[in-house]
């Protein structure tokens, strides 16, 4: 692939970067990134990846745009209410950069579809809102051997971790398994400042671009904690957990299964 004049002009500000250059830009144009969730985190991440000229973006989300989304999910506009999020987001991305191919999946990520879909991409961005999905993505990326960016936001806080499955600490190394449904507050219960999604979603896009370019150091084996009220970024050093049920020495998770919150509740009750 060689860049045409229009591409050279469009991407000139990042082609100037030594870590990108013409070669890096060609690499980005040949790359594929999957965004699981086209909401708060997925919106800014997808917009910046499209702007940067990542050649193919996959969007998977089964939801439709709701008025309550508009406070933070910046790929969706007021006239989009009621439209599937992947369609709404795809339209904005196409308008921003017609040179990017958008692949849409109007469904939620499940144990039946995510492994195969993730396997078609070079990098996965977890922009989901619930823990069974977050563990599902962690596990699917492990089995599909795909690097991914985990992120979460709540109230004025955010967290971020990049995982190179089998090589660096994964989400299960830290948390084991999902909490029972309702045990931990969600954004719809506890609230979230909209710009948190922008800060953290943009960092996810940055990690994806670095990974695709092979530039710099990824946020692996360290979790970034963002506390907006104090405006402070902290880093917690991590390492792979030998007792991790997925990537540890004696794994108990050997196939992709979606966590059933009811089962978790029962297990808790038996304790």
């Amino acid at each position, binding site marked *: 692939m060689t860049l045409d004049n229009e591409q050279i002009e469009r991407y000139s500000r990042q082609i100037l970067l030594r870590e990108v250059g013409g070669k890096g830009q060609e690499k980005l144009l040949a790359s594929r990134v999957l965004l699981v969730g086209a909401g708060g985190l997925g919106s800014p991440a997808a917009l910046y990846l499209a702007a940067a000229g990542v050649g193919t973006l996959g969007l998977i*989300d089964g939801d439709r745009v709701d008025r309550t989304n508009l406070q933070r999910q910046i790929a969706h506009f007021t006239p989009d209410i009621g439209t599937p999020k992947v369609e709404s987001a795809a339209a904005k991305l196409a308008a921003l950069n017609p040179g990017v191919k958008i692949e849409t999946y109007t469904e939620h990520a499940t144990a039946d579809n995510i492994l195969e879909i993730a396997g078609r991409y070079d990098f996965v961005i977890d922009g989901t809102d619930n823990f069974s999905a977050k563990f599902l993505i962690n596990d699917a990326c492990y089995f599909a051997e795909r690097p991914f960016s985990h992120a979460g936001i709540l109230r004025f*806080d955010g967290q971020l971790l990049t995982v190179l499955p089998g090589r660096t600490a994964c989400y299960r190394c830290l948390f084991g398994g999902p*909490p029972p449904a309702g045990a*931990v507050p*969600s954004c719809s219960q506890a609230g*979230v400042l909209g710009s948190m999604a922008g800060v953290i979603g943009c960092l996810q896009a940055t990690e994806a671009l670095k990974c695709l370019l092979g530039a710099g150091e990824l946020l692996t084996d360290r979790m970034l904690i963002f506390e907006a009220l104090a405006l402070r970024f902290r880093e*917690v050093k991590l*390492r792979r957990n030998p007792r991790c049920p997925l990537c540890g020495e004696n794994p108990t998770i050997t196939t992709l299964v979606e966590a059933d919150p009811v089962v978790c509740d029962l297990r808790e009750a038996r304790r």
Partner: protein
Amino acid sequence: MQITVNGKSVQTREGITVTELLVEQKVKTPEYVSVELNGEILDRETFPATVVPDGATVEFLYFMGGGAR
């Protein structure tokens, strides 16, 4: 004794266990918090018996959802 909890310097008593520290720090859902003590993620079952040493660095890691919905 002096320890560091989530980046902040905290004064606490000697011999305090991880379970007791979670209570003292008013962690709301201690059963769903992961704890890293001096760089090591602890098994939940060991919280009651694990004593926090002087000068320790403790991180409470919370489940954080957010994103799509």
